[in-house]
């Protein structure tokens, strides 16, 4: 049998029979609309007029001078409407769902950014919206819960398991099996069963498409390094995609190491996980010796996921991209550093990529160029980081 949706051994469609019909329906609709000029024109219009694309490729002059090595450019996904890259995928999927005649969007969310983006698209398209969010995360990101409600969505706190992102994904999948007729599951990352990893990647690939063009305009050449943070890996795959064939461009994904990859309190999947099958895909997962999914940890609710998208697992296998762990401490330092140095408050997720840039830029020649994707803005994280630093601030 021909295997669809594979990235090497990774990917696939490991889902209950109850969802196969809906998944095939989505697959067929996407095959049709991805080549439909009208669909693409509508999506571009939404990207440009509604989401504020193209996002800026900003030369971080002060940071570059301070670190004293490679030139650093920041791809400013934080300037998108709703404050993160998540909107790229959500506008694409919501438009697709509307074309398919769906009237209801469901989504999982970790930090709340994908939930907010989905609630936003649902408001724009006049669709019903239900967001599943781990109860633990509803506490960490209370303001985003309010935002989703303000946008007309209902938020369901998930009380099972570790009450974080993986449990929210499980619960959204359960909800989808209950109601597939009118409902589209707007999955937030390049994960889950085929065709989600491909659909989400294609919608996020606008990041690298723009970066490439902007870099050629500004520098007349390709960058030497492109890096982004990786949870499921949607902003990273979007940042990498149009550079995958350009072998001179080094691709680096920055995983959340939490308190360190030698501790159990980590979410660095490529560094600490092993091959497995979960949430509809074959990929790397943090798990115990009997295949029980591990309770992962990161200061960042958006990277707090025990798996990684199948295309990243494949890029890792073939050595095309490398994946590095970044700890909570390093990410928090980067969060503060970028705020102070460039006047840009990055999301704690994106701060993982900033942290790695701070490590490698000083060791590189001044004629080298690094692009770091700032996947989201950090306003949502200020209270949590203040508490991490011992201040008694609550939202």
């Amino acid at each position, binding site marked *: 049998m021909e295997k*669809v949706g594979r990235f090497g051994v990774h990917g696939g469609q490991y889902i209950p029979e109850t969802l196969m019909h809906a998944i095939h329906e989505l697959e067929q609709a996407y095959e049709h609309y991805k080549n439909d000029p009208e669909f693409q024109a509508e999506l571009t219009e939404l990207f440009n007029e509604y989401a504020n694309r193209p996002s800026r490729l900003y030369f971080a002059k002060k940071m570059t001078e301070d670190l004293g090595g490679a030139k650093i450019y920041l791809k400013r996904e934080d300037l998108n409407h709703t404050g993160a890259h998540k909107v790229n995928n959500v506008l694409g999927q919501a438009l697709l769902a509307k074309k398919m005649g769906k009237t209801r969007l469901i989504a999982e969310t970790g930090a709340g950014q994908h939930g907010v983006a989905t609630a936003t698209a649902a408001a724009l398209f006049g669709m019903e919206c239900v967001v599943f969010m781990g109860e633990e995360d509803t506490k960490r990101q209370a303001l985003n819960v309010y935002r989703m409600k303000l946008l007309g969505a209902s938020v369901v706190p998930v009380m099972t398991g570790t009450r974080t992102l993986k449990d929210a994904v499980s619960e959204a999948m359960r909800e989808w*099996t209950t*109601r597939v007729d009118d409902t589209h599951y707007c999955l937030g990352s390049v994960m889950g069963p085929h065709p989600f990893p491909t659909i989400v990647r294609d919608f996020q690939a606008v990041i690298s498409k723009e970066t490439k063009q902007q870099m050629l305009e500004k520098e007349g050449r390709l960058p030497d390094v492109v890096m982004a943070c990786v949870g499921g890996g949607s902003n990273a795959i979007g940042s990498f995609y149009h550079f995958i064939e350009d072998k001179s461009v080094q691709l680096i994904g920055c995983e959340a190491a939490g308190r360190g990859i030698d501790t159990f309190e980590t979410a660095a999947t490529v560094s600490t996980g092993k091959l497995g*099958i979960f949430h509809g895909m074959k990929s790397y997962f943090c798990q115990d010796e009997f295949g029980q999914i591990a309770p992962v940890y990161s200061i960042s609710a958006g990277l707090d996921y025990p798996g990684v998208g199948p295309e990243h697992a494949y890029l890792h296998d073939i050595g095309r991209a490398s994946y590095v762990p970044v700890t909570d401490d390093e990410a928090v330092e980067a969060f503060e550093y970028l705020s102070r140095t460039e006047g840009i408050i990055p999301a704690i997720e994106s701060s993982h990529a900033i942290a790695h840039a701070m490590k490698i830029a000083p060791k590189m020649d001044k004629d080298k160029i690094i692009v770091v994707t700032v996947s989201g803005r950090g306003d949502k994280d200020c209270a949590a980081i203040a508490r991490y630093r011992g201040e008694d601030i609550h939202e």
Partner: protein
Amino acid sequence: MSKIASAFANGKAFIPFITCGDPDVETTLHAVVEAVQNGADLIELGIPFSDPTAEGPVIQGANIRALAGGITTDKVFDLVRKIRREVSIPLVFMTYANVVFSYGAERFIGTCKEIGIDGLIIPDIPYEEKDEFEPICEKYDVDLISMVAPTSEERVTMIAKEAKGFIYIVSSMGVTGMRSSIATGLSDVVSRIREVTDVPCAIGFGISTPEQAAEMAKAADGVIVGSAIVKILEEKGTQAPESIGSFVKSMKDAIR
């Protein structure tokens, strides 16, 4: 001929589901023996998984209790060895793909054969992915059970043609758990299956009362009951086996 066929030889089959190690392995052993003495024709033994995405709250709870009690795949195998000393009816495992995959499919399925497990139900292995495990299942003569859902439609024929052991018909959309009403149209699904295979059909998801069981048994060769039994374990813990026995008797009597 699959050993599983013998479960469908005593009128309509009654198939209880029990999560291994909920709340401990001794209770599982007693519950299985009680169920068999009271008319169960085949037992579906659940191997707990941390994130059972096809389960409703009741069976999720059983998974959590069993894992908290320290159950592991190896301990489940030991439990089955003990069960096999007392029970001769067909036994199948219900678990998730990662439990089998992480153990090593060959090692897992080979052990199934060795300890007397006759089939495997893996809800996150649909038709499209079954060659992940099926060639190994064939090698060890363990049936990989196929599932059919209300939305399977034209997929029913494709799935049924290659089905082994029995076909698990999912009664209605959603996850496992008790329901007050179950979708109709199941006899159409069974007719489609009958056009291409004689493999027996059992209906599961949402069946909790003798009345529902009797109704479902009209359409198929057997009924599968999970959450209603797990609920007894949730409420009575180690004292549950006797109640499970009388519940199984009432269900088997209703479908005879």
